[in-house]
């Protein structure tokens, strides 16, 4: 090999696969330390990759040495590197949180007997998805993500949790099936599944079958991202799972299918998608309104946060009518994905602390929480600030970029919807805070909670606010290399 530079691409996939397998071998409930060590190395690898990209441009790794279209290519451009860095950076604190949370679990080990291997496979699958440049290989990664997420939701659960997992599994499987039919049509028309090979072919000539493939794949990914009206599976699954799992799903997993939709819409299907660009935007508006209303009405705390995810995923789709490669709208979407990921991780982790302290999953039970758990409440409030889009948070930067994109193209509807969504977010966030600031009734009892849980929530919330200040660096990384 002439190239002596260390290539982190394959290791970002192999490493989590390895610790997933090994922690399964260790036995039920084991593997937390292995996972934390592995995740730390993965984070370092993602940072290294980002540095390499900034200095040397996009990277391709031809698996098997064949090169597309015969083999499968891994491709890391700026967008992939940003998502990889974000995923490892959020997963590491969540894993640390999960370790403490499960060790402190009063309900025994059943809920987390296989948490660590499932987490390893989930992260490997997400990293593989971000790096894959092959539509069939992407199908396999989608299935991996779906099965790992369902396994995490179902583990050790009661009736409603198992029902939620089953509903999630069915939606996920039908969506993967639709995606696969899209792949089948693409292969039928062009005889290849490599994105790099397909892109110029689709630009040159796209018969009706390719339009159908694009539609099937877009619908599949919207369903996996829980965009309205495909959102119905998300609240019971995210609201019913153990808290560390909810955090992982809401912060990271839904972003993977969004990323793929963005990638296909911007690259592969760019010649086809322009006339229909208003449709995801419109569904996004509906998601913001409906998700926010349900979050405002929710009685259970975890359900409130889960419905907020439905609303926040709507924002991500507001950018589709405004998209252009390397444009401001793409920056807005990525910024929203990152800041929502951090904020939602912070929100679920602080909700986990509140649940443990009050022993109830109820907004009404929060009275007195502010006095007893000030750090956690502050974390929740900071995360809420990001969701509302107040400066200097990442959410503010995302809305600002969306406004800029909308004004440039004279389409002010989409940023306005985003701003209204921020106001609605304020309603449900303040509903929680107001209840927590009430004086505790004399009968209420607060159980002790490990301090480290509170600080992890606080750290994530702080990061979601400070993300806005690091916008320049993120945008520089995002701008590295396009596909082609």
């Amino acid at each position, binding site marked *: 090999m002439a190239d002596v530079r260390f290539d982190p691409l394959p290791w970002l996939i192999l490493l989590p696969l390895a610790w997933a397998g090994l922690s399964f071998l260790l036995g039920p409930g084991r593997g937390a330390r292995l996972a934390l060590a592995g995740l730390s190395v993965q984070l370092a690898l993602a940072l290294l990759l980002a540095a390499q990209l900034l200095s040397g441009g996009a990277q391709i790794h031809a698996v098997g040495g064949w090169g597309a279209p015969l083999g499968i290519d891994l491709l890391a451009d700026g967008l992939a590197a940003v998502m990889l860095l974000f995923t490892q950076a959020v997963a590491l604190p969540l894993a640390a949180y999960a370790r403490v949370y499960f060790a402190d679990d009063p309900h025994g080990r059943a809920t987390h007997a296989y948490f660590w291997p499932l987490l390893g496979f989930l992260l490997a699958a997400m990293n593989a998805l971000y790096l894959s440049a092959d539509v069939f290989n992407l199908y396999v990664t989608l299935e991996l993500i779906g099965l790992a997420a369902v396994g995490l939701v179902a583990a050790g659960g009661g009736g409603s949790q198992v029902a939620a997992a089953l509903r999630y599994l069915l939606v996920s499987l*039908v969506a993967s099936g639709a995606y696969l*039919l899209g792949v089948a049509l693409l292969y039928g028309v062009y005889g290849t599944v490599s994105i790099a090979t397909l892109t110029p072919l689709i630009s040159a000539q796209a018969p009706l079958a390719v339009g159908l493939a694009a539609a099937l794949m877009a619908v599949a990914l919207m369903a996996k991202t829980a965009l309205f009206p495909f959102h119905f599976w998300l609240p019971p699954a995210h609201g019913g799972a153990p808290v560390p799992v909810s955090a992982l799903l809401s912060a990271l997993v839904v972003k993977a299918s969004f990323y793929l939709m963005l990638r296909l819409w911007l690259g592969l299907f760019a010649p086809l998608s322009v006339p229909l660009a208003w449709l995801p935007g419109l569904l996004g508006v509906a998601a913001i309104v409906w998700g926010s209303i349900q979050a405002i009405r929710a009685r259970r705390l975890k*359900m409130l946060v889960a419905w907020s995810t439905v609303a926040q995923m709507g924002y991500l789709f507001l950018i589709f009518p405004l998209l252009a490669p390397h444009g401001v709208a793409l920056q807005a979407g990525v910024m929203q994905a990152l800041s929502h990921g951090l904020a939602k991780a912070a929100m679920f982790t602080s909700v986990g602390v509140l649940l443990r302290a009050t022993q109830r999953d109820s907004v009404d039970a929060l009275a007195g929480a502010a006095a007893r758990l000030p750090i956690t409440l502050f974390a929740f409030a900071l995360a809420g600030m990001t969701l509302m889009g107040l400066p200097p948070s990442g959410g503010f930067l995302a809305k600002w970029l969306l406004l800029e994109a909308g004004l440039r193209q004279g389409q002010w509807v989409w940023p306005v919807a985003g701003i209204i969504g921020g106001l609605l977010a304020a309603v449900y966030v303040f509903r929680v805070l107001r209840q927590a600031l009430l004086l505790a009734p004399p009968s209420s009892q607060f159980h002790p909670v490990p301090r480290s849980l509170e600080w992890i929530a606080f750290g994530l919330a702080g990061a979601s606010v400070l993300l806005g200040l690091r916008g320049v660096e993120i945008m520089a990384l995002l701008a590295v290399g396009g596909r082609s």
Partner: protein
Amino acid sequence: MSPGLIYALAGALLFVLGATGVIVLANLLRKILAFNLLGSGAFLVLVGLAQRDGGTDPLPQAMVLTGIVVAVAATALALALLRRLHRLTGQTRLPDEKEHG
């Protein structure tokens, strides 16, 4: 009209039949059966369409082998969840969606 195209067309119809079944039918075992029909449909389109001019193509064939294994893994997990749900609640259907809880 080649055998490949015939099976691809049948696969397309199977896919639509299965997808409609998963959405419309309420019994969970039927939903799982319907999902398997949907998957088989997609597999037939993958191989059939690629071989519409006769001959064989090892690439989609290998992909379908992967797909069959994924499908059986997913079916096993779905059945495990269904049996667990049935044991816990006595139900073989999903509860009606509640918009807030």
